[in-house]
Each structure stands twice: as C-alpha cells, then as structure tokens.
C-alpha cells in the first residue's frame, strides 16, 4: 500500500477505500482498504496487471464511479462511500472534474468534430478559464502548427499532445492519466511523457499515472502497486 509523504496540505486523501464487482455470481474485490495521500506537485504511479483496478481507482478519484467503502477527500471536498452517489455530491464531483481534475485516457480524448484548438478551447472554457492562451498550449506541446486540424487528421502522438494541452489549459490541481502513452510507439511515448512531466512540474499540479511501463512509473515520486494489494 502506498503512502503519501508530503509536508504540505494534502490535495488528495483516500481512506479505507473499497470496491467490488459481481462476476459470474461471485463477488470480486478490486480495491480493498486503500489508503492514499497526495500533495500538490507530487506524482504517483499506479502499477498492476490488467484488471487490477487501476482504471477503477482513477474513475473513483474523479467521481465517475462510486466506491463501496471508505472516503475520498479531494481539494477540500469530502466524499464518503455511502453518500457519494447522491445528487448534491454528483454536482460537487462534476464541479471538481470541470475545474480541478484533468483526465487523460489512453485514446479518444478529443471531440472528433472539433479542431484541436476548439477542443482545447472547449475544455478551458468548461473549466472557467480564458480560451485566449489555448493556442499557446498547443505550441508548448509542439503542435502549434496543427491547431486547425481535426483529430483524424493528425497522428496518435499528436492527438495525445493535444489531450495534454487540453488538460493543462484548464489549469488543474490534479491530473489523472490512464496509460496516456499506451498506444504510442516508444519514441513518441517518451516525448509525450516528457511533456507530461515537464508541464506537471511547471504547473505544480499533482499527477496520478496508471501505467504498465516501469520506466515511466520510475519517473513518478511515488508508486502504488495494486497487484500487491491482493485484490
């Protein structure tokens, strides 16, 4: 079980988190008694084999799934498992996702009918940020010349850079990245990871990165191996 060791006020605090699924008539515990603390600027690598609960944990940490036990505290908002699914809590989760939590998936992070720039603008505006610097974010991530292209007109690596630009344009407190380089070739994956860590460090936000890549995980300050949790 990983433990946060921050000296500043924690951004994320997870206590006794549990989640189970019913499968073929049996209950499968995916997460059980998980404890986790993460401060701003820190990074955590989530490791574990497929089905170990990495994506489930990320979904719980952004309120898209409800835990069965424990509680989550994030950016001063507290959510207990028994009340997490309630309407007001869903509203609070939505506000957190909109303004404080950026999520990057392995693929398909962009709206296909919008250009890269419009995607970034949409995400920034939803977060309540100005869309004036969206083009700059695309430039910083090395795809400044592709602002008017559509997602299907650029490569997979460029799409992931655009996804990172979207996340950073919203100025998040926490980034949840679910195998963001998993579908990219080694070189592109490295470039995208470089950008991710660079911008994360520069912005001072926290990062939780789910990955199978040990090298990538090694670049994070902390590491949590879900496979060892005996799920």
């Amino acid at each position, binding site marked *: 079980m990983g433990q946060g060791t921050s000296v500043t006020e924690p951004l994320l605090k997870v206590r006794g988190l549990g989640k189970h699924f019913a499968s073929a008539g049996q209950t499968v515990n995916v997460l059980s008694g998980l404890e986790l603390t993460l401060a701003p600027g820190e990074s955590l690598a989530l490791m574990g084999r497929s089905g170990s609960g990495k*994506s*489930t944990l990320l*979904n719980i940490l*952004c309120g*898209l*799934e409800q835990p069965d036990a424990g509680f989550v505290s994030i950016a001063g908002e507290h959510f207990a498992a028994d009340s997490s699914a309630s309407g007001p809590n*869903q*509203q609070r989760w*939505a*506000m*957190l*996702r*909109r*303004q404080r939590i950026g*999520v990057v998936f392995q*693929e*398909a*992070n*962009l*709206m*296909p*009918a*919008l250009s890269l720039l*419009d995607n970034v*603008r*949409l*995400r*920034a*505006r*939803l*977060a309540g940020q100005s*869309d004036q610097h969206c083009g700059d974010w695309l430039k910083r991530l090395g795809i400044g010349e592709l602002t008017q292209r*559509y*997602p*299907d007109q650029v490569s*997979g690596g460029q*799409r992931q850079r655009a996804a990172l630009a979207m996340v950073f344009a919203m100025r998040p407190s926490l980034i949840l990245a679910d195998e963001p380089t998993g*579908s990219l070739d080694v070189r592109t994956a490295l470039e995208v990871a470089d950008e991710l860590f660079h911008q994360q460090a520069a912005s001072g936000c926290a990062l939780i990165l789910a990955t199978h890549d040990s090298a990538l995980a090694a670049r994070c300050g902390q590491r949590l191996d879900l496979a060892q949790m005996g799920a």
Partner: protein
Amino acid sequence: MFLFSASQFSNLFSVLFSHYRRHPLQLLALALMIMLATMLWTGVNHLTTQARASLGQSEQAAAARSQLERVDGQALTVADFVTLRRAGLCVTPWLEVERPGQGGRLVGVDPLAAGCFAQTAPAAGNNSPERIDSPESSKKPEPAWTPVLNGDPFIDISEAAELAQNVAPSNVSLSLLIVPPEPASALPADYRMTGFSLGPDTGELGDSFLLNLDALGFLVLLITALLLRSVYQLGMAQRRDSFALLQRFGVMPSAINRVLLVEILLLALLSVVPGVWLGRLLAGTVSGGFGQALDSLFDTPLYAGQSENWLTSIATMMAIVLVVCLAQNVQALLLRTAAVLSFALPAKLLTGFGVRPWPWLALPLAAIGLAVALLAQSLPLVFFAVALVFAATGIAAPFAIAALSATLARKTREPLACWRHTELGVMARRLALPLVALQFALAMVLAVQALVTVFEVTFDEWLGQRLAADYFIEVPAGASANAAAQWLAAQPELAQSGDWHQVVRGVAQLPAAANDPAMADPKMDNPKMADSKMAGSKTDRKAQSVDLFALGPVSPLLTMWSLQAAGDQPWQGFAAGEGVMVNEQLARRYPLAVGDTLVLTLANTRLERPVLAIYADYGRPAGEVLINLELLPDEFVPVFESFSISPGASDITMITDGLQRLWQVESVRVRDNKRIRELADAVFDQTFLLTRAMTFVTLVLAAVALLIMGWVFFSTRAWYFRLLQVWGLTKRQVLAQLGWLALTLTLSITLLALPLGVWLTWVLVHRINPLAFGWSLPMAIYPGFWLQLGVVSVLIGLSITLLMRSQLGGSSPKPVSAASLRGDER
C-alpha cells in the same frame, strides 16, 4: 463456394454473423424493415394489380355484349331465364357476389349456357343496339368467352348462389347476358335489350387512378428502401474493423462479400416471405373498403383472384432488398466490368466523376423538376418532375442542415455551443438516409392529409349541392314527364316553396372546329372514345359527344350551387334561357371560359349560347353541359328523366301517390337523398381512411427507423457524451445536450419537409388531379397538420433522448471501434 470449403465458409459465416449476436436489435431492425417494406409495397401492389386486372376483366368479359331487362322494371329471376331459353334464345346468367370476408367479387356463370354464348359471341357486339362502335372495332372478331371456374373470378353459378345466401342482397346482382336474336322481334315483348357493361368506360380515369396508386406504392417503396439501406449501411460501418481484421488474417474480400451476400439473402428470405403474407393480409383487410371506393368513385368492380402470385412478389422484393443492401457491391461489379471492357465513361458515371454526394446537383434538379411540374401536360411527366424535386430535396436537406450547423458553429463564441452545432452537422450527414426518408414521409403525410381534407370538405359541399333535394323520383319508361311537371307545379306546397325541378339527362354533340378534317371521323360518333380525345386547344378540337343535363324550372335547390367561375347573375340568365353552364371537365378539355359561345347540337337542332358559368363536378371524367329544360327541342330523346323534390311539410307519399295515379303505374322509384348521402359519406370515409392509414403507417415506419438509427448512431457517439461528463458536465446537463441535438435534428427535418409537403399538395391538387381526372380541387393549407407533425418530430427526438439516457448511465465508457479511437467520425 470455390476457394472455400463448407466448414471454412461456415466458420466465416458464424464469425461475421457474431456481429448481430452483439447487436441483436440491429438485426431485428433490419428484419423488421425488410418485412414492413415488403408488407407495405405488397399491400399497395396487390390492390393495384387486382384493380388493374379487374379493369381488364371488365373490358374483356363485358366487351360488346348485351343484357336483358324486364320492361316492367322488375328484377330478373330464374323463371325469366327458363322462359327465354325455352324461346330458343342464347341467354347466360351472370351472378355477381361480393366474396365474404376477403373482398373482391366472384362471378357465377353457367358453363353450359356460356358454351352456347361462346359459339355465337362473335356476332354479338355488332348487333348490340345500345353500343355505337367504330367500323374498326366491328371488324375485330369477338374473343371466345370460355370462363375458367377457378374463382378468378368465375365460379359455377350454383356455388355463387350458395354464397349469395350469406351476403347482403345489396352485394348480389344477377344479370342475363344475351346474344341478340335475329330477327330482333324474336325477343319476347316483356323484355328489352340494353348494353351490358360492368361500369362505364373509365378510360383515362381508371388508368389515372391506378397510376396514382402506383405512385403511392413507389413512394412507399422508395422510403422503405432508403430506411433499409441506412440500417444496413450503419451495420456495415460498424463491421468495417472486423472485415479489416479478417483480411489481415488472410481472408479474401471476395469471400467476405460472398458470405455477406448469403447472409442478406437468408435474412431477406426470412423477412420477405412473412412480409408478403402480411401485405396480402393487409390488402385483404382493406380490399372491402378499397373495392367499395373503386366501385363507387369509378364504377369499376373489384374482382377476386386478380392479383399477382406469391412468387412474383417474393422475387421482386428479394431483388430490391439485394440491390438496396448490396448497392456498393453492384457498383463495384459494374466498375470492374467497365474496367475490363475499357469503358472509361461508364466507370466515371458510376462513381459520379469522383464527386460525392453531389450537393450542387440539387439546384438544377430542383429547378428542372419545378419547371416541368408547372408546365407538363402529361401525368408521367409530372410524376417525373415530382421525382426530380424529391431527389433534389433529398440530396439538399442533410447538407443544408450540416451547412447551417457549420455556419452557426463558426459564428458562436461559446465552445460548447460550437460543439453542439458541429455535432449536429455530423448527425445530419451520418443519418442522411433515414432523415431523408423521414422528410419524404412527412411531406407525403402532409400532402395526403391536406388533399384528403380538401377532398372531404369539397365533396361534402358538392354532395350537399347535388343532393340538395330530399328525394329523387324517377320517371318510368313511357311515362310523361311534362304532365308530371305540370301536376307538381300545381301542388300548393311545392308552388309556394319552389323546391323542385325536373331533370333530363341525355347526350349532346359539340361540333368540330371548322378547319378540322377529323370532323368526319366515324370514331367521333362514339361518345366514350370522343371524350378521351377531348384534350387540346381550340384549333385541334374534334367533334365530340358530351353529357347533357337539362333542368327546369330554376329552383332554390339550384341557385345554392357554388360556381367556380360565373358572369353577372348567372342563374337569372340561365332561367331566361340566355346561356348555358358547363362543368369543369368540359371547360378544361375543350377549353371554355365564361363568356365563350358554345355551339351544341341537340337531336338535329343547333343551339348557340354563351357560357354563363362553370360548375364543379367531381368524381367523373365526362364533360357536361347544363341547359334550361325549355331549350330542349321536342325531338330530343332523353336517356333518363327524374324529378328532384323537397316536399317540405308535405308527405312524399302524397306526391308519389299522385304521380302513380298520373302515370298509371303500380309504383314509382323514389330515392332518399339522405340515405344516398350517408352511403356516399361512408364510402368516402372508408377511402380516405385507407389513404390516411397507408401514409400514417409509412410515417410511423420512418419515425421508428429514425429512432432506431438515432439510437444506434448515438450509441457510437456515447463515448463523446461521456467525455463531456468527464469534463465536468452533470449527467442531466449531458442529457440536455443530447436532447437538444435530437430535437433540433428532427425539428429541422420537419421544417424542411413543410415546403416539400405544401408543394406536393399543390402538385396533387393543381397538376395531377386535373390531368388525371379532369377536375381540380381548391388548394388549402392546414397549419394544424404542421403542428401535429411538429409534435410527432418532438416525440421522436424525445424518444431518442430517453433511449440514450440508459447508455449514458453505463459504467466505464469505452470507444466502440478503431475508427472512433482515431476520431474518424467527424
């Protein structure tokens, strides 16, 4: 299959078919679509084929034959048949019975008597005293009449007699056909011969009616074909990744195509057969009403056993399903053939010169279609124009929505609104086929609804005019109508109210234009043939017969008629004998306008009078002249005479008793107009209900198709709605976005369907109806219908939203295909 063993083929088939195991609703939608399309088309086609065959049957069976009537007006019985046979005359009974339950008429004949008839039939037509034939037609040998007693529609008269016992007397009619004897005096004095006809020669009218039905059937087929293709194409789009994977595993594309062919063949066969059965069932259910409508409106009986067989319907629909679903394969095959034969141009044509999907083509197509619809003088051309305009709007509508969305997306500063607009554009393009089908169905419903309502209102008014008198009293053969008129005029009640007039019907001749060499054409002596030649300008006008309608005195029952066009005080002029009135059919075909001088020949008397007014005369093809009774020369021979009477406070029996005494007959035939009106209303209601039901089913089908397509399409976009949730929108907010999109899309297509529907109404009322039937209807627009259609489209949009709601509630969102991972769904 060559290159493939049976087990390999079977494996490949099960792999490909597994798509439908994952998407059973798609399979169900496809099967339902094929079945419903087959049902609708088979239903309409079954009725049309039956009607067309019945028309042919009428012409063949009744061609140039004569029938007998009793001079005393009594109904014919078996005793009459026996009497006539004993007199050595060739007589054959013809017993028509409405087929119980299934609709359509059966004809009972006596094979023995028919045999005698067949041997002597060739002479029959020429000797018929009631029929005036051209020299050409009299030279033609009469086809031998050898009815096959298989129920199509002939059966043995004993069976017909049995059936007749179980149906209402009004659905049974007995005629005695006769070969006119030589000499004519051989006919017993109690009988007289009249021409035997199963109804008046409907000529163009019948053909036009059937053409309209064909057009409705074609439109239904087009709409269902569009829907079928859209559902199939969507499935294919979802399976593209599987095909690519199989090809990577070494499966040849041709093998995949073969399996797909077998798959759709099986599915089509399984769906088409019940579809044909349902279609025939539908036709059987409505054929009662349809037959009644055909009989009442067009005097054409609907006979049993005239429809196409099962195999023809199944083969036709199978071919349509295969072509619609495998259009791309057919195109590829044609392209390959063109390449092999080095035909560069056909290949280019087949691919549309590489330009897709030709939005620019919509404008010239629409312009040509509108111009042709406005100017064309033949029905097929007008239908062609309608097809052009429909094609143009079908091409333009999705692009118009997409273009408008793109413009709005560019102009908006709100990124979420920008996304909504662009997403709407994607939907308009991706759902183009079901959208266009819905647009066509909406336009059709709008037009048919407006037309039917106009029909109902207009026919109601017209019936009110024509049946203004409470009773019709027929003048018996040999009785004096003039003496009766004098007697009626002397009745105090009638003299005070004036609510009666005498009616005389007959035939008048309109001369040819002076420079017309066809004036001497003997064909022109035949009223029916002449009438069909009436179209054209004054300069190529030919001699013709028209129906004559003489009335007098001019009663309040007449002056309430609403006239289509009239000069000043037309009824005063008419009462004074200063002019005549013509029906719309004659005015259109001759052509005539108010103030034109009409020259008529009545018996041998020439009458020249100005046209005072043009009156509406719905539901029949013939031209008609209305004149004051006083203008009729003494030598004029009426075909029919009657009196229209509203007795007011008096009892009609007092009048009929008086007339019986005057005419010295045992009874007079009195028709109660209220009852006729009720019957006519019932027939119209049934006819209109049929048309409405057919269009409504088409609309429901289109709506359901859009619903299914919308649902399936949104399923492929569910990931992006979940992205919005990930980006901080609540589920309710995401649902609102979804609702906005679905409602905007369905309302947009409804808005685009409105002008098309109004235009189609105009074409039906002002172009097709006058060309087909010779009379027009007033054009009316019913915004209430628009509102109803708006409500329907809102319901469709809301249904899509509600269906999608469950998908948004799913747990972990995953892109559904490689294409969506790449973002190819723009």
